[in-house]
């Protein structure tokens, strides 16, 4: 059974690019409960400066995943977490990206924060959203595609409203591949 490793992603030139430790700790605890497997926070911060697009001021998520895969242990499921905004070339942004049936995933808290939309900060909501997005991306690493059940964690969500409306659990069908991997 592979444990989950959370990697803080930051950029030395940008102090706010790294997520707060308390947020990572609560995420680690919640993911450990969701996947019923150990989840630890790696002590080192992974530098994602190489993936910055200066024009867009966003970081290329696919490039980060490729670099993470080369750098990390193959016997752990790796989730990079950043406070910076992520993109893939044709899309305006992504909340996260994962290798389908692979080992690595990455999520961003940038657009999960209420402040991004001009609202007052809500830490509890950010925690919920981050857990849903992180579990969703990790679900992809188990080979899961988007689920038509809107309540399922694997339901597609490209806006925070959709993220809020879906549940924090996998549906029965999506739970199966994870179960087969020995997590349940």
């Amino acid at each position: 059974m592979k444990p989950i490793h959370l990697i803080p992603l930051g950029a030395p030139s940008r102090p706010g690019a790294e997520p707060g430790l308390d947020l990572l700790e609560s995420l680690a605890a919640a993911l450990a409960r969701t996947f019923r497997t150990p989840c630890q926070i790696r002590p080192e911060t992974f530098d994602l400066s190489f993936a910055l697009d200066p024009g867009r001021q966003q970081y290329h998520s696919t490039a980060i995943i490729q670099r993470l895969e080369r750098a990390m242990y193959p016997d752990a499921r790796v989730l990079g977490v950043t406070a910076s905004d992520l993109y893939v070339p044709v899309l305006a942004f992504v909340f996260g990206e994962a290798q389908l049936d692979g080992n690595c995933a990455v999520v961003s808290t940038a657009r999960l924060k209420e402040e991004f939309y001009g609202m007052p900060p809500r830490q509890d909501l950010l925690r919920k959203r981050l857990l849903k997005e992180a579990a969703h991306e990790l679900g992809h690493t188990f080979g899961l595609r988007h689920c038509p059940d809107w309540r399922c964690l694997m339901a597609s969500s490209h806006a925070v409203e959709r993220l809020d409306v879906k549940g924090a659990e996998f549906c029965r069908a999506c739970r199966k591949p994870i179960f087969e991997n020995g997590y349940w």
Partner: protein
Amino acid sequence: MATAVDAPMATKTRGKILIVDDELVVRDSLGKWFASEGYIARPAGGAREALELIQQLEFDIALIDIKMPGMDGMELQARLHEADPELTVVIMTGYASVETAVQALKHGAYDYITKPVDPDELSHLVANALEHKRARREVERLRENLQEVFPSTELIGKSPAMKKATELIEMVAPTEAIVLITGETGTGKEVVARAIHAAGPRRYMPMVTIHCGGFTETLLESELFGHEKGAFTGAQYRKKGKFEIADGGSVFLDEIGDISLKTQTDLLRVLEEKEIVRVGGDQPIKVDFRCIAATNKNLEALVKEGAFRADLYCRLSVFCIDLPPLRERRDDIPLLVDHFLNKFCMATSRAMPQLSAEALEVLMHHEWPGNVRELENAVERALVVGRGPEIRPADFSFQFRADEPKGGQTLDEVERAHIERILRETQHNLSRAARVLGIDRTTLYNKLRRYGLR
């Protein structure tokens, strides 16, 4: 978002999307994004590749970059539309401008998006485009259904022969069995086919009718199986055949005894494999339909003569319904006359006239070689000719007269005599005479001049 591998073109998917962009990174990231969303996406690096792909595969949506080296997005859109008129095109632009948007929409694009694309917007746009396409198909299907099913499926008649036919229809309709309807011309084979379709499990899907006798061999094949663009001179577009159009419904093959041996072979293959290949194409396409066939010919005799394939006959004659000629069920004539009078009077908002006893007597003793169709036409003509509250024997004139001498007269003589008779019956009212004769007033004038009747 998941980094997904390219999936094969499966049949069960949310939709099939063609991505045309000269930038590899755009094709890649969009392809992966669509795959993770449950779509099947195929990338094309340029116009030529896109046009090749559209010939091989069917797509629901094409996402086309407007600026590409060589053929640009607008031109490609027009070419793709020629190849597949049902394809929904969405144009991608690097920058939003009113001119570009107007130009794209003017050229028939469904919508346009600006790069980089908001994933939520893209998700909605693609879902809406697919829904729009499905709705359009549904409308076409319903239109087809209305045209095909709306005509009466009511079987009129209480004679033992008709009761038997009705029982057979009730027996076979709920099944998927192939039905062969035989009977003389005008006995109501198409009405029976509609009744079977309307009472069967496929009633909410279209019933597509094809009168096989009205086409040459090549045209019939193109009608039945469809054709690819350029399959023959004049094939400017890819066209779906009747079997594809009927998807999920029924195909009524009328005058099946008139098709060539070559088409019989192709038809047998379709019935057995439930698979067609469009004329000029090489890809087999799965089709789902129920076959109902009809003929006024003796297929067994044609089989013996070698003009009809025995194996196709065996396949078609799983369940046969033979419709009796009207002369063998004269008891139904009053009911039928009443039905047609009612139908025509309703259509023209006219008070229903009475049928005189003498007129009924004439109808009961006529031979009706044209069967129910002839009776229907006779009633319609009588309603046009007779304007009073009662229909008299003089209001009827029959298309076929079994007792008339068959030889000795030229076609012109027969035509002249017939026009003269109708003129007498309509008291030389040329408009009414033209309606009865089924020609326009100008044609009638020309004929009157030609025969010296003016």
